[in-house]
């Protein structure tokens, strides 16, 4: 039986519990569910929000290709990938990956693989909007109050683990 991944790119938040439920309800063959949730963080307290730009059409297509690759590599019973776009504030969800399998190693490896490839291959770009230095609450449009996040070489190293 071929598994069809669920892939969505959306503005609104997702419900991890409901998505996990879709992969397990009424089934007896799922022994392991690995869920990855990526959140917008801001240890320094300087971030007002992230703006996630994406390439509509290609984003869904590329996530689908990565998900298909995961399904061909591991014996999964289900796979879900949801990536948000638009404005996301610290503490909010960005991305959800759920891999379901009979066995835990397949579920762990597939979710890990999917995140590594998503990071380096899915057409999304983060721009940081900073809080204004003056009062710490407002949001600036002027110079140096927003900047594109630079790609990390660490992400390339992670993705290379799977080749």
């Amino acid at each position: 039986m071929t598994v069809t991944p669920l892939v969505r790119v959306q503005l609104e938040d997702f419900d991890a519990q409901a998505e996990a439920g879709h992969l397990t309800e009424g089934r007896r063959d799922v022994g392991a569910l690995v869920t990855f949730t990526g959140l917008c963080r801001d240890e320094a307290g300087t971030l007002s929000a992230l703006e996630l730009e994406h390439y509509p059409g290609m984003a869904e297509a590329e996530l689908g290709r990565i998900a298909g690759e995961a399904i061909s590599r591991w014996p999964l019973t289900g796979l879900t990938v949801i990536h948000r776009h638009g404005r996301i504030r610290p503490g909010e969800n960005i991305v959800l990956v759920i891999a379901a399998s009979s066995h835990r190693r397949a579920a762990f490896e597939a979710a890990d693989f999917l995140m590594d490839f998503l990071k380096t291959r899915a057409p999304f770009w983060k721009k940081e909007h900073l809080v204004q230095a003056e009062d710490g609450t407002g949001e600036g449009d002027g110079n140096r109050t927003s900047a594109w996040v630079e790609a990390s070489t660490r992400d390339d190293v992670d993705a290379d683990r799977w080749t």
Partner: protein
Amino acid sequence: MNIRYFAWVRERVGVEEETIEVPASVATVADLIAHLKTLDETYAAAFDEEDAIRVALDQVHVEADTILGDAREIAFFPPMTGG
């Protein structure tokens, strides 16, 4: 051919999307970038860090030596930072 730009490439070029006539001499992705850089200063500046720009042809990642063929859409963008 339809060209799309994303993130800082889009900001530097100044448009999200445009349609251009591709000269017969342009065969590969690299040829197209070289051609765009000859058009004006804006393109030349936008594509100055050529190694930092990624390319998709009809929504699939490609390399600089890929032949454009009869692709309808090409996109230029920085390394991706989703997830």
